[in-house]
């Protein structure tokens, strides 16, 4: 099964390996055909990714008025506003908290499930079936999967009636829905798959002889996991973590749908600005968010050198 994560790894491998032999004259020098073949891809990403991102940088210095969304200018006011508003700091703190909690849980869960599928299930067919079971929800609607929690967690929902009937609580629990709890639950529900897939991919590449060697040398199962499997899964863990961290840091949909009006996040505050057509402040906030996300990814790749681990 080809997965995006394995493709990232193999594509990087390919780029890294081709780099080594380009000192001599390349018999397959790029022709006009090659260039023609990548033109559509290049154009799409220029028009809808590179230029828009550069524009966001520019817009973050723009002025705005209620009747004109974008007034070209150079002002630092938007950034000053972002950094001086006390809500900004609270929002970032809340978002970091979500990010950390969700990362820890999805990592532990993803690692355990991938470990189970990779090392306990011997039949490849069964492995594929279980893998498919985990990935099919990825191809269905995220909004619907969020909304699906409402009848379970709501005031009169299934969880509450169950708890009431069992006598665990006397009153319906309000914190189950439209709270940080439901937002975190939603994140885990939606994005654990992003951890399972790359970690599973790293695990199935591990030479089984290494694990046998560890066992023969007297390592317990925990020691084998800690000193053999975990280090060898680092690239998969890094890729999964990058996905989870960037998604959670920038999310506004899950926070809006499952957080009700109660929960704040950076993505949501940008989205709120945008719904009032305040593009420049939104852009300034987006730039701060982007800088933080990039720093987190760089930090992660410093700890785990994805290329070196291949």
């Amino acid at each position, binding site marked *: 099964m080809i997965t995006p994560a394995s493709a990232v790894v193999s594509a990087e491998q390919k780029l890294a390996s081709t780099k080594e032999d380009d000192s001599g004259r390349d018999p397959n020098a*790029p022709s006009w055909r090659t260039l023609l073949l*990548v033109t559509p891809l290049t154009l799409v990403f220029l028009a809808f990714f590179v230029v828009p991102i550069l524009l966001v940088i520019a817009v973050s210095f723009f002025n705005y008025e209620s009747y004109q969304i974008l007034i070209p200018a150079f002002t630092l006011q938007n950034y000053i506003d972002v950094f001086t508003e006390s809500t900004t700091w609270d929002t970032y703190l809340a978002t970091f908290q979500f990010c950390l909690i969700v990362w820890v849980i999805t990592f532990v869960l993803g690692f355990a499930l991938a470990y189970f599928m990779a090392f306990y299930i011997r039949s490849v067919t069964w492995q594929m079936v279980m893998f498919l079971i985990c990935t099919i929800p990825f191809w269905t609607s995220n*909004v619907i999967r969020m909304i699906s929690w409402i009848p379970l967690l709501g005031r009169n929902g299934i969880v509450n009636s169950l708890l009431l009937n069992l006598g665990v609580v006397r009153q319906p629990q309000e914190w189950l829905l439209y709270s940080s709890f439901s937002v975190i639950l939603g994140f885990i529900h939606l994005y654990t798959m992003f951890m399972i897939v790359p970690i599973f991919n790293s695990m199935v590449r591990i030479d089984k002889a290494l694990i046998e060697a560890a066992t023969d040398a007297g390592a317990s199962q925990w020691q084998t996991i800690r000193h053999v499997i975990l280090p060898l899964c680092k690239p998969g863990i890094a890729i999964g973590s990058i996905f989870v961290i960037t998604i959670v840091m920038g999310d506004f949909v899950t926070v809006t749908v499952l957080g009700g009006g109660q929960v704040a996040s950076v993505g949501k505050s940008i989205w709120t600005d945008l719904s009032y057509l305040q593009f420049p402040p939104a852009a300034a906030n*987006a730039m701060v968010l982007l800088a933080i996300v990039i720093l987190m990814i760089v930090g992660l790749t410093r700890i785990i050198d994805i290329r070196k681990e291949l």
Partner: protein
Amino acid sequence: MLRENHPRSFWALLLLFVVFVLFLYGPTITITILSFQGPEGGLTFPMRGFGTSWFTQVFQAQSVGDIGGSFERSLILGAIVCLTTVIIAFMAGLAFRLRFKGSSILFYIVIASLIMPSIVISLGIGSLFELLGIERNWFSSGIGAHLTWTLPFGLLVMLAVFNRFDRRLEEAGRDLGASRFQVVMHVILPVVAPALVGVGLFGFTLSYDELARSSQAMGALNTLPLELQAMQTNATTPVIYALGTLTTAVSLVVIAVSLSLVLLLRARRARRSSI
């Protein structure tokens, strides 16, 4: 797999797996059941009767939102994005077999698009169209926004496929006198066809469910996920569950069709090579 003698850790992890699968599918199954509430039924259990009245309501005129229109737009948009993704990713996959000037930069730009917070891209595309004075629309800025999300997946799949592609097949075709175009059509295309179906699956379903990148790029007319998010805040009847059941059904049908197509293509290839 159950007949062997398993250690205790196997059962613990199997239990975790089963609980996780229940956690994954439980909520979706719940709203599927609830969408068949009788006409008196509410947003949660108990079921008051059983029927499809909420499904018929989906397609009737709504007080909130434009479900029929957004559903149609989402399907058309998904089909366009699916086709465009397959074609562009296939072409780029062919090109990326060789290292060309700028191939690394292009590759990293595509990966960056995959992990860029969607709201930033959405804001950028919105600003671009605003500054150019072009009206934002689902068939212009909307398609562009979706392609920045579907193409990275498509390209990665194609790169992985061409990594394993046996170039001797291609050389054999050339030696037998096929033109470059004939090699692509009669040698490469049949071999990578199952992967192209996979790319199409990514293209359609990711577009059909896309929400975050669309938010500032769709203009006046919503796609289904945007409409759903807007409806969700003031949904008071199981209509929203019926709608959810329908969109999940659409996704599942697309997945099933794609997977069986892949299996069919593989089986055909296996049969051919065994002759």
